[in-house]
């Protein structure tokens, strides 16, 4: 446990070092270039905008809404992906169906589907969640399938030898056995989902009466509050990094790293 903590701390310190460096470069650019704050605000202005956003109350709510939306979308998307996995491994027809579907839909950017999504699901949270689900399913299915195929036959033989039911086989062998791929799939899906969410929020406006971070950024943009816009972008980045490090980093350490299984 101490070892684990040390690793996280070291990694975090390194991160802070690089971030500090980038901020220094930013400050120098602002100082040297004498940019208008409409084009490149200083870190200080952005920080003040951040404080303002939080103190006016709405930014906090927007962050929660964004996270709730992406979490919902990812959960549903992952479940559906597992359903597809089940279909793909249970029959040859199932497999060709799933792989064809993936080939068609994976390259399609969620935002391209926007007009269709609006027509079918309206302009509320449902549409945003749908777009997130779409961003999540296809990379997830791809990884799940790869993970499933990567499981050594030996494990399955052991499972059969001990007369494991399909249910137990799945939870005791298939799931942990393909876990490195599952984790990789989750990481990719998260990145895609977060991106799609912010873009979708910019368009769909004030869902749940305040909208999410994407709407925050968009509003700042149209009212030419560039420091505010940057503040929103900073929030997006920070959340992205936090989830990467705190959530996925920890999971990875407790599972894949600990078990010596890597993709």
């Amino acid at each position, binding site marked *: 446990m101490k070892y684990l903590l040390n690793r996280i701390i070291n990694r975090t310190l390194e991160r802070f070092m690089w971030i500090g460096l980038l901020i220094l470069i930013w400050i120098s650019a602002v100082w040297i270039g004498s940019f208008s704050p409409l084009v490149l605000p200083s870190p200080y202005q952005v920080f003040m905008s951040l404080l303002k956003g939080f103190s006016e109350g709405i930014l906090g709510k927007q962050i929660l809404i964004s996270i709730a939306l992406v979490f919902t979308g990812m959960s549903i998307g992952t479940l559906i992906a597992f359903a597809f996995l089940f279909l793909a491994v249970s029959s040859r027809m199932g497999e060709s169906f799933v792989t064809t579907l993936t080939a068609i839909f994976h390259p399609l950017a969620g935002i391209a589907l926007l007009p269709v999504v609006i027509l079918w699901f309206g302009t509320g949270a449902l549409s945003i969640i749908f777009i997130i689900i779409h961003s999540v399913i296809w990379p997830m299915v791809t990884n799940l399938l790869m993970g499933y195929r990567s499981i050594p036959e030996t494990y399955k033989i*052991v499972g059969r*030898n001990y007369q494991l039911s399909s249910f137990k086989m799945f939870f005791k062998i298939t799931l942990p056995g393909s876990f490195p791929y599952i984790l990789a799939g989750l990481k990719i899906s998260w990145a895609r989902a977060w991106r799609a969410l912010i873009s979708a929020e910019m368009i769909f406006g004030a869902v749940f009466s305040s909208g999410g971070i994407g709407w925050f950024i968009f509003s700042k943009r149209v009212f030419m509050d560039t420091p505010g816009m940057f503040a929103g972008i900073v929030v997006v980045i920070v959340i992205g990094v936090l989830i990467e490090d705190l959530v996925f980093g920890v999971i990875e350490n407790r599972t894949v790293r600990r*078990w*010596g299984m890597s993709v």
Partner: protein
Amino acid sequence: MKESSDILLSLKNITKNFKSVDSSLTVLKNLSIDINRGEFVSILGPSGCGKSTLLKICSSIIKQDAGEVCVSNVIVNHPDRTRILMLQDDNQLFPWLTVKSNISFAEEFLELKRRESKVPKLLELAGLSEYSDYYPHQLSGGMKKRTALARAFAGNPEILLMDEPFGSLDAKLKIKLQKFLLEIWNKYRMTILFVTHDIDEALRLGRRIIIMNDSGDIICDEKNTLPRVGDFSEDEFFKLYRKYYSLLTGSISL
């Protein structure tokens, strides 16, 4: 040839073909063997003669094309916990479970009470008590094999089917593990079918020697005349060794 005691595992007219795109290879043809309860049988044979296939059929992991597999006179078609197969593979252990959990994996289905668990005893016997919380990737090859063996024993199998389990290890480690195996067998007296290509190992472990040729036929099936423990004269050993060696090499068609 066979001792008259009860027959636990019986193979009757087993035939197995492997089909490829344009040809069909008959690996086993009309093979019949009876194995008695508590017997330690060494199966020798050249590579590709079908010994691994034989073991897999015995455990029902693969299905035969003709013939029957019977346990205590009952036909069996599906794998079950009473017949545990131990593969050649270096990677049999589940990497996401500790040594202890890997071993106790076998016990889960026995519905034992905590104090009845054989795991601590097995860990001790295998010399792995200190490593019980380690993960397989942290272990040496020999330790992995010991863990796999311990797991195989933990489930109280009636029949243990071992496919060249010590094949990839160095001589010293082999001897150590052979000792471990014999200790367990002496203690629990399960029935063991031990496949190997090493005559030395076959003689040291098995009480009964079966030799297969590369067409999948049994060309020798007799009791191992060497005494188990204590000294046996090198003469006796080498006499048998040479006999089996020539049987083996003679059975290889060039």
